[in-house]
């Protein structure tokens, strides 16, 4: 994905937006940090083998509803996909890069 640099006007507008929403609070920063850390941890865990939501939650010591929410987001944006079932639970696996590339075309 091509990335441009922001123009001085855009930087100024972005700074003004930051002020208008009351700045980026510490709470927001921490939430974002936790989101990125959780996604990385799930990605790493699923590299070994497909897993169910309770398995992910147990391994990463997070509540099962939170693990499901992360998996849902990763599924929506093409990072994971269903890979069969284990009892009453669907299994989730990482989407291979070549599959993602094929889907994009």
């Amino acid at each position: 994905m091509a990335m441009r640099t922001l123009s001085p006007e855009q930087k100024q507008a972005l700074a003004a937006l930051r002020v208008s929403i009351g700045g980026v609070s510490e709470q927001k920063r921490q939430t974002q940090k936790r989101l990125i850390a959780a996604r990385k941890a799930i990605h790493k865990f699923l590299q070994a083998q497909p897993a169910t939501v309770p398995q992910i939650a147990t391994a990463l010591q997070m509540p099962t509803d939170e693990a499901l929410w992360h998996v849902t987001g990763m599924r929506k944006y093409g990072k994971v996909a269903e890979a069969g079932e284990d009892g009453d639970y669907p299994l989730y696996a990482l989407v291979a890069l070549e599959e993602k590339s094929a889907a994009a075309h």
Partner: protein
Amino acid sequence: MNTHVSSDFTPDAVIIGGGIAGLQSALDLADQDLQVLLVERQSSIGGHMIALSKVYPTLDCASCITTPKMSAAAHHPNITILTNTEVEGLDTRDGVHHVRLLQKPTYVNFDKCIGCRLCEYACDTEYPDPFEEGLGAVRAIAVPFTNAIPQKAVLNAEACGTCGTCARVCPTEAIEYDQQPRRLTVRTDAVVVASGFNLNAVTVKPQYNAHRSHNIISPLMLERLLAPHGPYGRVLRPSDGKMPSSIAFVQCAGSRDESIGVSYCSRVCCMYAIKQAMLLSGALPLADITLYYMDIRAFGKGYEQFFQNAKAMGINFVRGKVARIDPVEDGDLSLHVETTEDAEDPLQERRHDMVVLAQGMIPGWQPADSTPVACASDGFVATPALTAPTATTAPGIFVAGTAAGPKDIVDTIAEAGAAAMQVSQYLYQKRSSVLVA
């Protein structure tokens, strides 16, 4: 799609609300060569209906009905659509309505945005997706949902981390961080209030303990779970991603109950619960599905047959009232039921692993706060004339759909068509009298 409104724009009618009622009224008026402004507070038109899975009693795909109407409105030369726009107030002077609008910033220039979603893919901030009733995730800048109209990205400033990535990747330089709220007043001869409904919260009855379990869900959540492009891609329990094997519907959980201030019947819960139960039995063929009800109100054309079909499919209908729901181990739920079907053992405890509460319909907007339109004691728009069900207390202002009271999609569409005809007749009479004078 026409989304530009200048200060001298004077449409023949303003439609407040871009759900199925507003869309139908707008299309019916625009087809009569009247200029219509459709105002929608969300980022897409379509209302609640675009989020539904299927409709009863035909089990037609809801978005297959809604999307063509959304598209027809967006492409109609006589319809202008303002999304992300709220009505702040309405004054009537000399028979002309002055509608005060607040257009909220989207931080995206809709003329430049091509809906490519590169900004969305590059964004790394996610929050619970309101379109998925919080079950899924959406990024801080995103096209609201797959078939949203307009297909334009919108930035949620509250969620945004202000990293600037979206502007760096946008191929058309559509991101405008300096957009400001815009206030405008539109003059018009007629208004249709089609502001729809909300559901009361699942937590409205503390006895049901919805705040203590993710598996006590709203009917709109279940609609998203049943939708083919829903958050999980299948029906799963929100607490842990388990395929539920025993699901209960608790009827009248937010209506017909004076203790929560909703003494009226919401008119649609029996039928949508039956529909959802039928769809669930298709999605989860081995699941046990039970519907706890006081009485089934299947009053529309083909509805009784639909109810009988559900019974024949093996859905378990239990006449009684659920008094309390307690979360128990493994995310399951214990329901304390008083049933009239077992005289020897009327008080029973039953276990399920997911519960759907039939919440009550409440008004989506209170026009009485900022317009001359009066509301009835139930909070919905008052329609005092028995022979003119779309007429409000204010001349030239009409109402359609659930803004006037709980009703289903069939009745909403019929009423929206009627409101359009009332507007058309009103405009003809008003303009004829001006010509004669």
